[in-house]
């Protein structure tokens, strides 16, 4: 639901164009061809110009430059001169460390969805009930998301280190045999990372789900309970289907975030040992082998690979999952949209 609300403002502007047939989006622009609208154009140029210039300078140009540098062996000093063709890309794709990093990324993508999704929906259901201390619980769940990644990483790294709070607590409770090298043992480290990620980002998912829940009309539940549906039946038959668009958008954000994960890993495991502990990601690989090693050409090539992988995943997701949500909004099938609301 929430996404159709986000897109909604476009509806009126299309309608304002004065055209009724379905492929309304394009011709709407034709209205401004009347000379009287030059002021409007100037206004648009004036207001959006600075933002566009900044966007081009700091986002688009660097992206294109990375693509260019990726074809060079380049130390970062002076202009690149040593053209390397696809050597960097061959080196990246055949490097077992990079393959490991990609594998870790996809493990994180899947586990994030599997762990955070159900937890977030349950928490959202809980907080959608009128219970005491609801706002306190809501705040507590959301706090981790607001805290800076650096603080979260440092805090957890201290707690989970071998001589840290968790192992000390276990010892005090007489549970020495449960003590682990939570961060250093390659068999456990990924689990620890997922625990921290879930703790950190579940709040965001909960807030999204809550917003989604609140847009589900109360009447549906009333009608269902009159028909004798149990609480869980109501959740499975009403809440989950109507929460679908929210879940799909959240999953999309979660996937992109997981593919680009860098900061927490870099803080907790430092710049060097993430690959050893089995928690390296494509971004930490890029930082270590591009920036830290001073191979800026190679690093740029890694950035391009990371971009292409993220883009592919995003496009596939858009095509096969998000399409059902954007369908109504983008193709102007207003009848369907109305029905949904």
């Amino acid at each position, binding site marked *: 639901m929430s996404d159709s609300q986000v897109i909604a403002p476009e509806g009126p502007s299309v309608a304002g164009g004065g055209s009724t047939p379905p492929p309304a989006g394009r011709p709407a622009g034709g209205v401004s061809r009347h000379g009287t609208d030059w002021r409007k154009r100037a206004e648009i140029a004036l207001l959006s110009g600075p*933002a566009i210039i*900044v*966007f081009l*300078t*700091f*986002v688009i140009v660097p992206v294109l430059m990375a693509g260019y540098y990726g074809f060079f*062996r380049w*130390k*970062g*000093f*002076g202009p690149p001169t040593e053209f390397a063709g696809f050597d960097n890309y061959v*080196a990246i794709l055949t490097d077992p460390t990079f393959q490991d990093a990609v594998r870790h990324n996809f493990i994180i993508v899947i586990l994030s969805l599997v762990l955070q999704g159900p937890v977030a929906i349950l928490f959202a259901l809980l907080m959608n009930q009128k219970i005491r201390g609801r706002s306190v619980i809501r705040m507590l769940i959301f706090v981790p998301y607001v805290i800076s990644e650096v603080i979260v990483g440092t805090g957890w*790294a*201290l707690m989970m*280190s*071998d*001589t*840290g709070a968790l192992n000390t607590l276990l010892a005090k409770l007489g549970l020495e045999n449960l003590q682990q*090298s939570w*961060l*250093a043992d*390659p068999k456990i480290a990924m689990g620890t990372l997922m625990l921290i990620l879930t703790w950190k980002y579940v709040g965001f998912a909960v807030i999204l789900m809550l917003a989604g829940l609140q847009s589900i009309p109360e009447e549906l539940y009333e009608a269902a309970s009159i028909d004798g549906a149990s609480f869980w039946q109501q959740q499975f038959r009403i809440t989950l289907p109507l929460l679908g668009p929210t879940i799909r958008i959240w999953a999309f954000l979660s996937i992109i975030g997981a593919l680009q994960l860098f900061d927490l890993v870099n803080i*907790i*495991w*430092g*710049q*060097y*040992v993430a*690959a*050893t*502990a089995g928690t390296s990601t494509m971004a930490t690989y890029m930082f*270590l*082998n591009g*920036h*830290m*090693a*001073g*191979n800026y050409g*190679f690093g740029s090539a890694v950035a391009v690979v990371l971009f292409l992988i993220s883009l592919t995943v995003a496009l596939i997701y858009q095509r096969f999952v998000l399409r059902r949500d954007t369908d109504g909004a983008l193709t102007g099938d207003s009848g369907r949209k109305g029905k949904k609301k």
Partner: protein
Amino acid sequence: MTRKMRGATLLALGATVAMLASGCAGSGDDGGSGEDSGPQTLTIWHNSTTGPGKEYWEEAAASFTAENPDVKFEIQSIQNEDMDGKLQTAVNSGDLPDIFMARGGQKLADIVATGQVKDLTDVISEEAKGSMGAALSAFEVDGKNYAVPTAVLPGGIFYSKDLFEQAGITGEPTTMAELEDAVAKLKAADIQPIALGAKDAWPAAHWFYFFALRNCSEDTIAGLAGSTEFTDECWTKAGQDLENFAGTEPFNKGFLTTPAQEGAGSSAGLIANHKAAMELMGGWNVGQIASLTPDGQPLADLGWFPFPAVDGGQGDPTAMMGGVDGFSCSKDSPAACEDFLNFIATKAEQEKYAEAYQTIPANQDAQGAVADPALEPIMAAYNEAAYVSTWMDTVLGQNVGNALNTAVVDMLAGKGDADSIVATMNSAAARG
């Protein structure tokens, strides 16, 4: 996207403010930089963020200005880890500070290759040339000198005398067998034998460097710079020696995620708080440990011994490995720049430097100023060393150096062996 945009806008705004601010500053000093006569302002980038180190630079600049009233300074203290990145940006924008910190090895060679560093070969004073010897040669690129050294930081094993006594260890280990014996005794006394900050990779790699220093001949070590193939058997032997030693499990619990210098849980912190007995580290560790003791004072029972001899090694058992700190001038800096470098290389200034940084000065005449008892054995060993090599990762440059460091960590964590260290070095050399 909006978040990114806002960041970019802020950046642009910040840049504007910075330009305005520097513009104001520029008009204040009569815009003399680049000219050899008349008032001029030299910018300095150094890496000391603590009290005495920062004060040293302010005082040195002030006393130089007192002698040369035309020369003023703009001093910037930059966090050590940020230094390389900032230098790189400055090189690319052609905006190097007049005086900046240099680390020698391939790192310096990379900057020199851009032609933005001043050749100091003919302008270094006789005093500096006479008293700095080996340290000066650490900043040679193709036979020319590009920096004046300020401190030498040789590595070795720091240990707690009290903990050694508790474990019943009588003498400082001089061979690997004795070191392994000491490790066993410490373990028996329930003391963690060796602190290792493997999270930062280079402290773990130090162990490999020293095994290589003892195993490889002087020529092999000296020929390391710029080499892209590591075929000598001594590299593999060094890896095997380390693998065997690591097999005795001498390192602290959780060494893989232990940082080197930050906080009481770091390897330096473990030594400072008597939680571990030994650490293989560079000369800066005396000051580092002092800053992490409960009362912030130097560790009273801190001792030091050189890395033990290795059976069948081709290297000289007195050979040392360490770092050298120094300072370079940018190509376009005024002549006052080298004058200032010669000034800080004098005996009097080097003595102040040694006191402020708690380190060994590069000027050997100034070594009398070293007061810390833990530094004395290091200095003695340094003066007696058959030859001194720079840290292997510095010599090899960031690319191969970092790959080597992480490969050593991998091996210590049980992923890979001596052969894979050498293989990683070779593949990294092919990448950069």
